[in-house]
């Protein structure tokens, strides 16, 4: 079977007038900032019977949602633009921000058009939120999605294929439409292209970070999780072309990788602050999702098996995944740092984030052993005070410059 995965420019972007990065980024920013999700609402309203399926960090097989004819909608909390009024009544002060702002989005009816919700296994907080969602929004199809922690195809793999079947059936019931293997393979091909383009953008940034600032890349990725994958693919192509073509001043910044930020997201200002403090972020784990699977998913054979194999064999190391061998712990981070030629690591975690914070000493030790300088700090999605972070990152950048 051959699948056409060629990207075509979007209708709103004629080829003769290629958009500038600023234009693309502006579009992404408006999507990212729109907590009423107008674009997703419009997508749903455009064709009767369309469904939207939300998903939370850190990974869900979006191919299945797409193959069901639904729009996968990435939900990453409320950021720093939304006042959380009701959400605080659901959570104690010592629990991170993302579940409370997600609840806020729900109870303020900003998600009233969302027909299904997938809560991937990232930690006990998101896990418990899946049950809360069932109670708060009984008409929404809510699914806790537990990926295996055993990576043997015969053990974890077999379990996972069955879980994927269950997910496929659940989506089938939601939409009233059976997902065929061919539907799924077509979606896999589109997402393979998406992942390839995402990797290309990341590689481009690592090559020329002054041409692709992380504050832009971040918006490009976040917006991509709120639109159809076909459209995101075109946007990525357009961005790459535009960024390549534009001249931008190169600064004497140090190159850093950011880890620990896979779930609750830092405010955009924090990402900008790192840049202003003299850091080019050349590698990160912000909101993983589209970088969670690191290679193409096979479009031959059984597509569920293919998705399972990709998860088992070709997915990133991150805090919610068990690392079976002690000597491999943190290896991924070190390899990525080397690949992106980062000179240091900023381990930036949400406050009260057990997975990231418990991982921190282990990952940082490995970085230390590999001679990679690192610093750590905590943030919240609504952190407002950037001065301390800017100072810390600035000092870090200076020390790298001085000693490297």
């Amino acid at each position, binding site marked *: 079977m051959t699948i056409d995965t060629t990207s075509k420019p979007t209708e709103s972007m004629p080829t003769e007038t290629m958009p500038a990065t600023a234009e693309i980024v502006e579009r992404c920013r408006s999507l990212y900032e729109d907590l009423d999700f107008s674009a997703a609402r419009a997508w749903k309203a455009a064709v009767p019977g369309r469904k939207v399926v939300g998903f939370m960090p850190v990974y869900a097989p979006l191919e299945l949602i797409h193959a069901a004819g639904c729009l996968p909608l990435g939900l990453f909390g409320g950021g720093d633009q939304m006042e959380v009024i009701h959400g605080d009544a659901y959570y104690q002060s010592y629990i991170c921000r993302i579940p409370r702002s997600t609840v806020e989005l729900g109870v303020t009816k900003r998600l009233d058009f969302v027909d299904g919700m997938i809560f991937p296994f990232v930690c006990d907080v998101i896990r418990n939120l899946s049950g809360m969602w069932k109670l708060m929004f009984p008409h929404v199809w809510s699914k806790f999605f537990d990926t295996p922690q055993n990576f043997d195809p015969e*053990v974890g793999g077999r379990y996972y294929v069955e879980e994927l079947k269950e997910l496929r059936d659940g989506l089938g019931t939601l939409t009233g439409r059976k997902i065929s293997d061919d539907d799924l393979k077509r979606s896999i091909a589109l997402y393979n292209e998406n992942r390839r383009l995402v990797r290309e953008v990341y590689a481009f940034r690592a090559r020329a970070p002054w041409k692709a600032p992380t504050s832009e890349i971040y918006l490009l990725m976040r917006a991509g999780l709120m639109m159809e994958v076909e459209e995101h693919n075109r946007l990525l192509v357009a961005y790459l072309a535009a960024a390549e073509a534009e001249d931008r001043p190169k600064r004497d910044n140090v190159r850093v990788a950011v880890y620990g930020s896979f779930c609750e997201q830092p405010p955009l200002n924090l990402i900008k602050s790192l840049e202003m403090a003299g850091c080019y972020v050349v590698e990160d784990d912000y909101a993983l999702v589209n970088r969670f699977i690191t290679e193409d998913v096979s479009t031959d054979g059984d597509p569920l098996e293919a998705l399972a194999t990709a998860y088992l064999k070709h997915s990133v190391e991150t*805090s919610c995944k068990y690392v079976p061998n002690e000597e491999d712990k943190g290896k991924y981070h070190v390899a990525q740092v080397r690949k992106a030629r980062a000179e240091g690591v900023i381990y930036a975690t949400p406050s009260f984030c*057990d997975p990231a914070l418990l991982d921190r*000493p282990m990952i940082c030790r490995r970085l230390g052993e590999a001679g990679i300088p690192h610093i750590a700090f905590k943030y919240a999605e609504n952190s407002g005070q950037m001065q301390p972070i800017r100072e810390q990152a600035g000092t870090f950048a200076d020390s790298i410059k001085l000693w490297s």
Partner: protein
Amino acid sequence: MSDAVKEPSMLLQKEMIAKNYEAITSKNETGRKVASTFVPGNLNELLMCFGIVNNLPEINAIQNGMRKLSGSYIMEAEKGGHSEDVCTYVKADIGMMGKGNIAPNGKPFPEPDVLLLSYTGCYTFMKWFELLREQYKCPTLMLHVPYEGDGHATKNMRDYIVRQLREVVIPGLEQVSGVKFDIDRLREALRLSAQAEEHLVWTLEQGKRKPSPIDAYFGGVYYIGPIFTAFRGTPEAIAYYEALRKEVQARIDAGQGPVTPDGGSFDDQKYRLVVEGPPNWTNFREFWKMFYDEGAVVVASSYTKVGGMYDLGFRHDPDHPLESLADYCLGCYTNRNLPTRIDILAKYVEEYEADGLLINSIKSCNSFSAGQLMIMKEVERKTGKPGAFIETDLVDPRYFSAANVKNRLESYFQMIEQKRRGAAKAA
């Protein structure tokens, strides 16, 4: 405070625990192997098949909490780079290693031969043992127990656990111990487990009586001890529960309440509570006293279900040994989704004729705590009984504010009184 008064069953349990610590700390002399593992998802019967001694870091943290050592251990771990935000059981354990790793019997803990990472109901377990593994460099056997997200276990989940037992856990334990797995040995242990489980359920259900002859939270943590730790599947556990049953029966016959640490029998029970969440260990006696001083007895609790929900009918089954271990792991309280937890607690409030649900929310524990405010509201809504919320920590003394807890409890009891007066008027 004077020494706590202990009933014979408590003394028996104390001896059992001491014996187990002795077995752990003397492993270099005896040549026995030691596994570290967790209370929820504890596979004690399986470990026994290989002659492996069971060491439970959560229990060590509790012991250190009660002996007022955990505070300094936690600080030690924080000095070593651990965040103030994370689970204090983990930090108490890691800090203890930094401070000589001394067991409650005063002897150093030897290094474990294997970490049995049965990952049931709590994500942090995985990180905890990744951290220990970094230290001990010993084999680590992961048993991933999927979460009952839709409120029930599926065949796929069960099969997955059984496959892991067959392919990972049993061969791993064979390798560590040099002992060949004998399923009949497992069956025999499971038979004993089921007997002890019957006794435990009988004991916990006596909370339905008025006055309640047990305290299902502060007393309950003792009742669950043998089954939740290193004694499930042993004759000693059965002997313990027989002794416990006799004591409870004697109190029932005498119309008495539970024995408090002061030695009195707590008969004048004004309030009957269901409690959700683990207790605070650093100020355990003080905490308990706040309840019985006010006339509050706990008639049912969720904490006594973290190591298995036997009261819902589950028993280890010698005829289906591996499957029954899988079902056990799946069914532990914190592996159940929020709506199920709410149903269980509401059922307790009804069946144990409680005045309401009190939540002791633990700063450390996302597994229990995330969603508890909703649990409280939902249980209130379902039962029409008032709920209350207090906040403490497991083993970090910095988060136990006696004055706050006392105030909250007093207001709660006033609320219950008001509700009663309202109900009496309406009648």
